[in-house]
């Protein structure tokens, strides 16, 4: 880990425009949570459904996309990453430093937004907030690692990431049985289902059991980090326009 790389990454990541977008997305989730509370009289079933589908299914991956790609994609695109790479620091260290910043930022933004959203929409003794907060934290880690890898591997990471986040995770994984088994969102919901086992009517469910879900999350995250680091090690960098 290199503190200077991390510092530079935080500065670039939380530039004005991206901060506004992140706060805007978090605000959107809270606004929807408020509407749900107002419209359904704080029904926990509605709160759980909205926060799973709109929150965990859509906004969490989008926030992780912005952050996971934001720490590195534009620097690769415009070539300014040479100022980090032309230094006596192994590329592995640079990749890990950027990834840690991305993971930290994602966790703070997504978990805070989710817990606050559940609290607004409707909860009972923070049980739903704890369950969905846990699911969000796990999903955040895996999503951010995957988007970080996409940012290094793909030439148009935002488009690839958006298609994956919205189409695969947002739509297909919500409805199509086969796709559900290979979805970060479904895996992350497994521990939430376990935490809420005494409230089956809240309908927080995953298609997978807890153990396989956690194993798959772990494998996906580690694989994404491995791919990202390996690719950055041999990434050809353009030093011209």
């Amino acid at each position: 880990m290199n503190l200077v790389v991390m510092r530079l990454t935080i500065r670039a990541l939380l530039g004005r425009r991206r901060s506004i977008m992140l706060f805007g997305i978090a605000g959107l989730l809270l606004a929807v949570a408020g509407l749900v509370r107002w419209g359904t009289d704080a029904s926990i079933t509605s709160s759980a459904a909205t926060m799973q589908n709109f929150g965990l299914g859509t906004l969490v991956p989008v926030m992780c996309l912005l952050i996971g790609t934001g720490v590195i994609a534009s620097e690769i695109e415009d070539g300014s990453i040479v100022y980090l790479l032309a230094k006596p620091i192994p590329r592995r260290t640079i990749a890990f430093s950027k990834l840690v910043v991305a993971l930290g930022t994602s966790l703070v933004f997504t978990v805070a937004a989710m817990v606050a959203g559940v609290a607004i929409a409707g909860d009972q003794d923070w049980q739903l907030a704890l369950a969905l907060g846990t699911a969000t934290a796990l999903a955040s880690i895996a999503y951010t690692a995957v988007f970080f890898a996409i940012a290094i591997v793909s030439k148009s990471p935002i488009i690839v990431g958006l298609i994956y986040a919205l189409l695969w995770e947002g739509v297909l994984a919500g409805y199509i049985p086969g796709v559900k088994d290979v979805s970060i969102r479904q895996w992350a919901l497994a521990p939430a289902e376990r935490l809420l086992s005494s409230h089956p009517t809240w309908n927080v469910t995953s298609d997978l059991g807890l153990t396989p879900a956690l194993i798959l999350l772990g494998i996906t995250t580690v694989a994404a980090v491995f791919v990202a680091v390996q690719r950055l090690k041999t990434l050809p960098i353009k030093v011209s326009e």
Partner: protein
Amino acid sequence: MSTVELNAVSRWFGNVVAVNDVTMSIGPGVTGLLGPNGAGKTTLLSMMSGFLLPSAGTVTLDGIPVWSNPELYRRIGLVPEAEAMFDAMTGWDFVHANAELHLLPDPSAATRAALDAVDMMDSRDREIGKFSKGMKQRIKMATALVHDPEVLLLDEPFNGMDPRQRMHLLALLQRLGADGRTVLFSSHILEEVEDIAGTIEVVVAGRQAASGDFRSIRRLMTERPHQYMITSANDRALAAAIIADGSADAVRLTPAGLEVQASDFGRFVEALPRIAQSTAISLFEVTPADESLESVFAYLVSR
């Protein structure tokens, strides 16, 4: 004293060969890497700075391969052509961060020295994004100098500089070269190279076209046959007079005018007005037909 060696280096991207079997050795002093746009200069510099793996051949610094060897960046300073930096930072913060990334013991002193060298201390607290192109170029230069490298690689460093900035950078590069550093800069403009580079390497279409002392290569360039396109009141009579005068090697009569080839550039330029006057033929237009850099380089390659 460091030497960058390229040994039978080729690099291709898919079906496109960007660099084709280049062998060169760049030692202390200032070397110009000259070639038209798209000749492979940037690809060569990318390989020398360890950002691109050669498809064939080896690139070494004092015998150590530069690819995948970040420790070597302690000795290499790189000025990329791309303009993007961390634009939201001030000049000082950015150069200082570079000094820290080089793990220098006193990054502040190094930053001050580097900014002084490029004459940017006065603008150090302004954001990089608000700098002019020439000032950005100097900040890039400062980031490359901050760790006092033995080898300095610059990609088109004079782009976007005004004459005063250019003079300043020329002097700086000359000083660094005289100090015994290995300075290599690329350019597609002959005159830029002329003033400072003792040695030049000419690349055209990915191949090494000429290498060595600047003056002898310059002579090769100026002594090549020059082509002119001339229109006059009486092309046929003028053609006869030019041939009779002996200052040109060949004259071709075409519907568009006279195509003249002269191997002695100076003599022909002097002779033409005299011939026109003595034969009383009005010249309408005299155009050098092949003064583009590409044709100069193409001539060198064909030799």
